[in-house]
């Protein structure tokens, strides 16, 4: 049953905003607020006034803000200190990966091309080729080889 008048409700709004409202009255006040725009507006005003009181006495607020600013400054300094190192490390890692990939892929490709038909560029000593055509049984370039 919701038989509270606006006057009854408005007398309780400040205590409701301060979380000190009588729990017995609470359901009736909530029901009234759901259907009364004037009391809802008054309730918003009460909440704002109480929040201003809390803000007024919140001496720790600026200190918490200062802590947050210091934390952000430290984080920013750490980021600035670490980022160039990370970039350099990433570049070296990328270079190593590419080098390892080339070392792994190139000998395999050379072996594959050696077992199949020779590449056309190697066959007849194409113009501009630096390598002489391979002569079977012609021995190795290295004179020390058997």
């Amino acid at each position, binding site marked *: 049953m919701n038989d509270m008048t606006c006057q009854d409700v408005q*007398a309780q709004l400040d205590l409701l905003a301060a979380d*000190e409202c009588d729990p017995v009255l609470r359901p009736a006040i909530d029901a009234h607020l759901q259907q009364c725009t004037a009391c809802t507006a008054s309730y918003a005003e009460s909440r704002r006034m109480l929040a201003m009181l809390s803000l007024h006495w919140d001496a720790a607020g600026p200190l918490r*803000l200062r802590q947050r600013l210091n934390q*952000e400054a430290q984080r920013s300094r750490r980021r600035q200190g670490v980022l160039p190192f990370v970039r350099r490390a990433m570049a070296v890692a990328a270079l190593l990966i590419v080098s390892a990939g080339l070392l792994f892929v190139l000998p395999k490709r050379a072996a594959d091309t050696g077992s199949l038909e020779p590449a056309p560029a190697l066959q007849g000593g194409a113009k501009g080729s630096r390598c002489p055509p391979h002569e079977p049984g012609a021995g190795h370039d290295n004179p020390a080889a058997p």
Partner: protein
Amino acid sequence: MQPLASDAELVDQTLRGVTDAFHQLTVRYYRPVGGFILKRVGRPDLVEDLLQETFLEALAALKAGKRPHAFSSWLFGIAHNRCGKWLRRKHLVLFAPQQMPEPAVAITEQELHDELEEQQALMTALDKHLQDLPEDTRQLLEMKHREGKTCEQIAAATGRPVGTVKSLLARTYKLLRTALQPPPGDLS
């Protein structure tokens, strides 16, 4: 007694890397900007987060070399944008239609300056009314809002019945609310 440094002096010092200068600015504007944010978003639980974001953004801009023409209006402008961002992010659906906060619209420097003056006047009026309260009533409010005690805890600490504490609290809130209301005809 050393005179208070002006905003411009503190901004200059912040630009030169004096971190304590910016802290002085935060102490000076913490409450007015908090009141402004509270008015914009209508949610006491959000005020501290938005306040911190506002000051962080201001400090970052100063560190990047920004030199505001008028620090206070500029700071209120940042707070206004922060509130606007928050309201857009939440799509306003969290609010009951009656509790709908003011929509964030473009705001001129003059309006920001007026907002600053309004908040400072409100805070000054609050200070004055609190000082005019009887000592025991002010202590009661301090226990409630500074120390975060419940009426039961206050009753136990002061040796008064809980009902008396609640009645006194309700009367004081009503008194303050009436005293802080804008005069009739002032619709701002």
